[in-house]
Every structure is written in C-alpha cells, then in structure tokens.
C-alpha cells in the first residue's frame, strides 16, 4: 500500500507546516493575565488538533484528486470497496476518546481560570448604554478608567443598569456577560503592566461599538498613588468634579464636548444658548433649565431629538451637589 505510506508522510509534513504557520502568524494579543495562561495553553492544543485533522483530510483529498483522477481516454470505474467495519469502529472510537480527553483538558483549564484568591480586591463594575463605571469600595473611589495593580487578583462584581452588556479585555482573555437585576462575577489577575481597553462584548444598542474604556495595569506603588489622587477629588474645583461625575454616569456617551453630535446635543456652548423645542417654544439654557432637564429629561422634546433616550433616573443616581458640579462643568465648555 505505497499510497498510504506516501500520504502518511505528507500528512505529517503538512501538520508540522500548518502548525508552524499558525505559530508565526500573529494570532492572539499579548497574554496579560494569570487566567490567560491555561487558556492560551489550551489554544495551543487546539491548534495542533486543527493542524493535524486539516492535514489528514485535505492531503488524502488532494492526493486522490491528483493520483486517482480519470486520465483522458481512460475507461472503467473506481475500486469496488463498500466499506470496512474495522476502520469504521476505529474512526469512531479514536475520535470519541480524543473528544473526552480534550473535554477533560477543557474542564481543567476552566477550573484554573476560576481559581479563587480570598484576598482579591473587589471592584464594582456598572454597565449601561453606552459606558462603564468602576467603583473601588475598599477605597471609596469611583472612576471611568479601570486602574488595576499588577499581580493581584481582582474580583469584578458587575451589574447592568439596562440591557445585557459584556465585560471583555482581550489581553486578559476571560469574558463575562453583565446583566440587569443581578450581579455577575469575574476574576482577573493582571500580570503585565500596560494600557489595555475593556470592550463591551454583547450588542447593546446604537453605540455598542464605542463602548470601550481604558484599562490601566500599574505597579502596586503607582496604583496606590492613583488611589490617593482620586480620594482627593473633593478638593478639586466643581467643574473638575462635574467632569468626573458626567463621565462616570455615562453622559459622555451621548453628549460630546467638541461640538459634534453623538446622540444628544453637544455640551460645547450649551450654557446660555437658546434651546428650541418641537412645540415651537424656546428657553434659555441657564442653571435652572439645566437642572430641571437633568431631573426630568422627557418633560419637553428638544427640536431634532427624540424623547425617551436620555435616562430618567438621574434624580435617584446623582446627589444635588453632583448635579450642580455637572452644571458647572457644562458652563466651562464654551
């Protein structure tokens, strides 16, 4: 059966070539978490399997197409073989065993990604259309960028304010959907200092594509310095504080500060301008107007914009002081 020998050699060569090709191609982003290690190792196993099985089938096929093609003028039919029960049993049992082995490796890899560190630092993550905010209960700090100390396990406790979102930092590998009405957890242990992005992984509406925010992994010392700076925010100016509250409550997802239109009107030049409504009336955007509008966005429809998009729950989410800070911030955007 010289055909078999030739094909076997070709399959082996092809497997190695394909796997080498997969190695050389830049396939995955940098591996930047402890959870990524078992995952990337499992990917390696899969790539071997893919290289081998692809080679096995395609080499046999290509060989047949070349060697067993009907040459011009040739008559006759193929070799009259109906089957081979031993072969059938073999290629049922071997894949079955392989599947069970790979599944067990998968279960083990999953277990490793779920390893619990009881000293993990808790970060509360809130998702909404279309932004993230992060809260560090241990430090009484809130932020719109996820700052994390390297080599420490973080326990993310996540909830959505509206629809299903998904928390994903590609370099950390692991992913978790974020649901309304219930808290879902994800553990990540960043291992490489650097700048990454959290990207919402579940289609959540209009600006799903833009729901990306910075993730900054720092040394423990730098992280503590950042925490300290955040805790001093009370000493910042009202406009600076207002900028922070606006970012953390998702205003920036719809209101630009540079004059462009995202979903709602831009805040640049908003303060003091004349606002036109769909019913033909007008108003001046002063402190009283802005406050009333934030508390009750659907009372009147602004010309050119739809109702029922701006959340109507800021009266519950923001304190009076925070709203005043935000108005100061808007004032500063000329």
């Amino acid at each position, binding site marked *: 059966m010289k055909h078999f020998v030739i094909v076997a050699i070709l399959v082996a060569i092809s497997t190695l070539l394909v796997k080498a090709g997969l190695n050389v*191609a830049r*396939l995955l982003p940098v591996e930047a978490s402890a959870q990524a290690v078992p*995952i990337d190792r499992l990917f390696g196993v899969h790539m071997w399997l893919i290289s081998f099985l692809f080679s096995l089938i395609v080499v*046999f*096929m290509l060989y047949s197409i070349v060697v067993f093609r009907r040459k011009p003028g040739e008559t006759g039919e193929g070799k009259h*073989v109906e089957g081979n029960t031993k072969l059938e049993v073999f290629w049922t049992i071997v894949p079955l065993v392989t*599947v069970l082995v790979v599944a067990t490796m998968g279960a083990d890899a*999953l277990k490793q990604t779920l390893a619990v560190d009881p000293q993990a630092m808790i970060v509360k993550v809130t998702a909404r259309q279309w932004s993230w905010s992060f809260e560090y209960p241990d430090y009484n700090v809130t932020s719109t960028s996820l700052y994390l100390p390297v080599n420490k396990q973080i326990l993310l406790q996540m909830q959505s304010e509206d629809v299903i979102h*998904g928390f994903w930092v590609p370099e950390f590998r692991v992913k978790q959907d974020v649901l309304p009405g219930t808290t879902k957890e994800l553990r990540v242990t960043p291992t490489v200092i650097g700048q990454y992005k959290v990207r919402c992984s579940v289609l959540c509406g209009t600006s*799903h594509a833009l729901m990306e925010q910075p993730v900054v992994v720092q040394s423990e010392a730098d992280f503590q310095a950042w925490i300290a700076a955040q805790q001093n925010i009370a000493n910042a100016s009202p406009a600076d504080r207002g900028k922070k509250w606006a970012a953390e409550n998702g205003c920036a997802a719809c209101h630009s500060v540079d004059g462009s239109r995202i979903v709602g009107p831009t805040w640049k030049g908003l303060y003091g301008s004349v606002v036109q409504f769909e019913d033909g009336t007008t108003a001046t955007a002063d402190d009283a107007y802005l406050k009333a509008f934030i508390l009750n966005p659907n009372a009147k429809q602004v010309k050119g914009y739809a109702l029922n998009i701006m959340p109507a729950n800021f009266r519950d989410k923001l304190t009076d002081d925070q709203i005043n800070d935000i108005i100061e911030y808007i004032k500063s955007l000329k």
Partner: protein
Amino acid sequence: MQLVGIVLAALLGPIVLAAVIAAVMVWLSSQVPSAASLPVPKAAAGPSVEKVILTSALVRGLGAQIVGTVVGIGIVVGIRVMLGLPPFGYEPAAVVGAFVGAIFFIVGTGAVTDWFKWALGEETPEQHEEKTNLPVWAKYINVSLDHKVIGIQYTLTAIVLMGIAGGFAMAFRTQLAQSQLKLILPDMFNTLVGLHGMVMIASILIGVAGLMNYLVPLLVGATDMAFPRLNAFSYWITVPGALILVSSIFLGGFNTGWTAYPPLSARAPLGMQMFFIGVWLVGWSSILGGLNLIVTAVRMRVSGMTPFKMPIFVWSSLATALIMLTATQLIGLSFQMVSFQRLFGMGFFDPGKGGNPILFEHLFWFYSHPAVYIFVLPGLGIISELLPVFVRKPLFGYKWVAMSSFGIALVGFLVWAHHMFTSGMDEYLRVPFMYSTLLVAVPTGVKFFSWVGTMWQGKLEFPTPMLFVLGGIVVFLIGGLSGPPNGTVATDLYLHDTYWIVGHFHATMFGGFVFPFFAAVYYWFPKATGRKLSETLGKLHFWLMMPAFWVQSLGQMGVGLLGMRRRIYTYDPALGIDTLQLFITIAGFVIFISVLIFVYNLFHSLKHGEVAVGNVWRSRSPEWQLASPVPAHNYDRPFRVIGEPYDYGAEPATVYVDLNPGPLGPEAPSSMPSGMVPAPAGK
C-alpha cells in the same frame, strides 16, 4: 370601568376578528378559482405577460395582504375606540395588521381554497390539471400541488433571499472595510447585520425545503409528497413571512442582531415586531414541511426500498425533518414571549417584574442550535449522494453515513447552552454542555472519513457539481475544525462574541449548505429542465467563490482572534486589523459577483443551455432513469429495487432500480404503494 372594557375587548375582539376573517375567507374562496374548474381553452394564443402576472396567485396574494393589513389595523383602531384609548396604538396596530395581512395573503393565493371547500362539504379534484394556454413559467407564480414545481418555487425564493441578505452584507462590509468609516449610521448598521443573519437563515430553510421537496419523492419512487396541499401552503406562507421580515427595515429597524435578546429586544423599535412575525410565519413552513417529509419518506417508498436501500439523501432529509418538526416551536415561542412583553407588559424576561433574560437565551438556543443542523444535514447528504457518482465507487460505509445523520441530529439537541457559556447561567451547566458539544465531532468525523474513503482509489471526474462538492467538504472542514475551541469553555471565554465565531459559522454554513446547494442545482438542473448549465460559467462561479471564501473565512477568524468583536459598526484602529478587514470586504464582493454569474447562468441556460435529456451523469439513482424534464407524475408505475444504490464499479455491473419491471414486477394493484393510488379526497 376600564377593567370591564378590557374584558369585553378580550372576549369580543377575537370573536369579531374571527368573524371578519371567516366571512372574508368564505367570500374569497368563492371568488378564487381552483384550477380544475377553469375551462380548457380551444384557442392556442395565450394571455399577455402582464395579464399572466397580474392574475397570478402571487399578485393576488400581495393584493390581499395589503387589504388584510388595513383590515387588521382597522380592527385594532376599532377596539381601542371602544376602550376609550387613543385610536392609533402604533405597535398593536402594526402587529395585528401584519398578521391579518399574512392570513389574507395565503387565502388570496388560493393555497387554502381546497381546504375551505372541504370544510363546506364540497368535493375537489385530486390533482389540479395544468392550464395549457399559459407560458411555462406561469406555474411558478401560481399555486401548484406538484412537488417539483413547489421545489423550484422554494429554490428560486431561496436564491432571491440570498441575494437580498447578500446585498445587506455588501453594505455593512463596505462600512467595515476601514476603521472609523462613517458610511452607515450605527442603528442602520445594527439592523442590516441582524437582517443579514435572519434573511440568510430564512433563505437556507427555504433552500433546504426546495431540495428536499424536489428530490425526495423522486428518490423514493413516489408521484408526490404525502400531503400536496400542505406542501403548497408550506411554500406560500414563506412569502408574506419574508416580506414582513424585510419590512422591519422600513419600520425603525431593530438593534439586537438576529438573536433578539431581551431586555434590548423588549425596548427595540417597531421593526423588532416585524422581525418576530416574519420568523414566526417562516417557522410554520419548517414545521409543516418537516411533517410532510417524514410521512413521505416513511410511508411512500416503493416496496423493496428498505431503509438501507434508500438513497442517502433521504436519510439526511429524514434527520433534518425530525429537527424541523420538533424544535422550531421554541424560536416561535421565545419571540412570542418578547412580543407579549412589549404589547401586554408581561414580565417574562424583565428582572424588574421577576423575570430573567437568561430564560430567553435557553428557549431561543434550544431551537437555534438544532437549527444549524437543519441547515447543514441536507447539504452533507448532497455531498454523500454526489460523490459516488463522480468517483464511480460505492459510498464508503453507507450504513454508518446514514446513521451519522441521526447521530448528529440527536446530539444536536443536547448542546444548546454552548452559546451561553459567558451568559451568567448556572455555573454547573458549563462543563456538561462542553462534553455534549464536543461529542458532535464523532458522527461528523464519520462523514468526513467516509467521504475520504469514497474518494480513495476511485476514478475522479470534475464537472462543476463535483467542484462544489469538493469545495463544500474542505470549507465545512475548516468550519468544523474551528468549532472545538468554541466548545471548550475556557477558550470560548475569549472567542465568544468575536469575529472568530462569525468565521466559524460562515464556514460551516458555506460548506454545509451554500456549496452543496450550488452542487445540487448544477447537478439536477438538467433533470428539471432538459438542459445543462454552462460548464464554463459554472467553473468561473466556483473558482471565484472558493478562493474568495477562503480569504473571507481566514480573515474573519484572524481578526476575531486579534480582538474584533461582533456586531460593531466600526472598530479601533489600534487593533491593527484594517488590512485584513479590507481583504474580507473585497472577498465578500467577489463572492457576491460569483453568485450573480450563477444567476445569469441559470436564466441563460434555460433557453441556450446544452440539451441534456438523458442520464448525463451516468447516475444509478432512479430519477436519472427517467427522461428529462421529469414527466408530470414522475414514474408511470412503481419501480422495482433490484440492487444497491451506490454499487458503482461492481464486476459484473449491477443496476439499482428497474423502471419497467416485467410480469414478475410489483404486486397486484390493490397493494400498490400508496403513492400510486389516487387517494380519496380528504388528504
């Protein structure tokens, strides 16, 4: 007072609705001629093309649908006025309007006329006679009970829907060709990707129905499907379904993707409801078509065709039909529940009312995973059916291949939650579903190894159908191999909702359906029309589509691995994937062009194709022992099975079926296979 009003409306509403519908339908049924009652004209000249189109069932149905939509809206307005509500409730009016429109459509076509006549105690002829004064193409826009006509109607509809969905893809892939383009606004983009998905799914369901309906009666020796009127209904209901589905784009669209997860789908624009209704209607076609197929394959085979002497495509079709019949209800149910949440405030998936969005995901995927096996099992059956013909060698391990379709269908019901590994469902579910998911590889592997076993030491020939068969195998291989990384949970935590998944399912869909579908059309076109499709254009179609599809597939998997998410209208330039995205877009355009070449080939060859009335592929299969095009009632008499279906290369040569059995042929008429005896009216 309001409570009384609501109760009255709840009781009166359906009664009024039913009464109006019944009255209109009885009136319509008396107006719509059943074909047999038309006189056969003496003159040779037929009506003009315009007249043929305007009096066709299709146009009648569309007109009726418009009327029905207005009636439905009117009913809602009427009820709301009675309740003292503002008359025009946008969403309820649109939903009821769409439903009543669809009902009027199906009545207007005449597809249900015979059933109404039976309900009124009237007799109808068993078979509708063909009107001889109409052009040949007229029967495809009218109601026919002939499975061959219905099969072609299904197939042409599938191609049209493929073109529409492909067009949507051209649009949004243009937007994605470079990062941060602003050609399409995000809400429109989200609607286009969602519609691309669902219209393609509808196209595949309808294409699968086309293949099964055309071929299975011919393969088992029947003159038609078990329930011809049900068959006609199953086809015609897809038309209003598809129209309503696509209408969503004009009614605000929907921003959820084809998976329609709540809470987002509960607050999506009105287009979401049109999406739900369109799918619901097409689902009926699947359920009823599946029923019809099972009865046909189980009860209407010629005697002598024992299960392991059936053509392999019948095995695949049976496995597919079992899924169609039993799983489709779940997507209809899950969509209905979101629809009721929107219309009536029921809190199934609303955490604020004690509901759970994950429940939707379970209900939805319980159908939508087995659905993918509906999509691929027929195509894999086509591959198994055609390979022996072009390799001149038996199908290797026929019995194992036959059983593997059932193995895939069965295991396919046990894996749905692998779509939900990151969903936040109960933790303990993840590992068991991983095991069941990986298990599907075993029967699928049997198919691949059997195909290789069939080719090995064969005598291979490469006309266009064979090219698409081989292409299908390789593409389905890539798709299948990109599956296990999704199945092992830990790696899926990375891959879920990325473009790797998009690459995975496009490869499995193209390999399992698109390529085999084209193979089947190139292969059976001569049987249906008596002409061959152009080999040159066919090869051009293949050699454009195949490399382009590889670029698209590997590109999609590549950008997914690098961090590209699904369903985003623009992407971060920092990902460094702009070049790959451009390649993917260009590849998509090349595929689209190759399909246009195919469509041109289709219509050009109807008039100018090489005449081919005999057994052009030297196939053993029964339908190829008939002349082409297939006679109206298929076989004059039941054929006798005297050999194995795939006994190519036997020395001395054998035959599978004898279409003209002699005196020792089939038994006396009283025990003829039911497919041959005109059944009493009432089927």
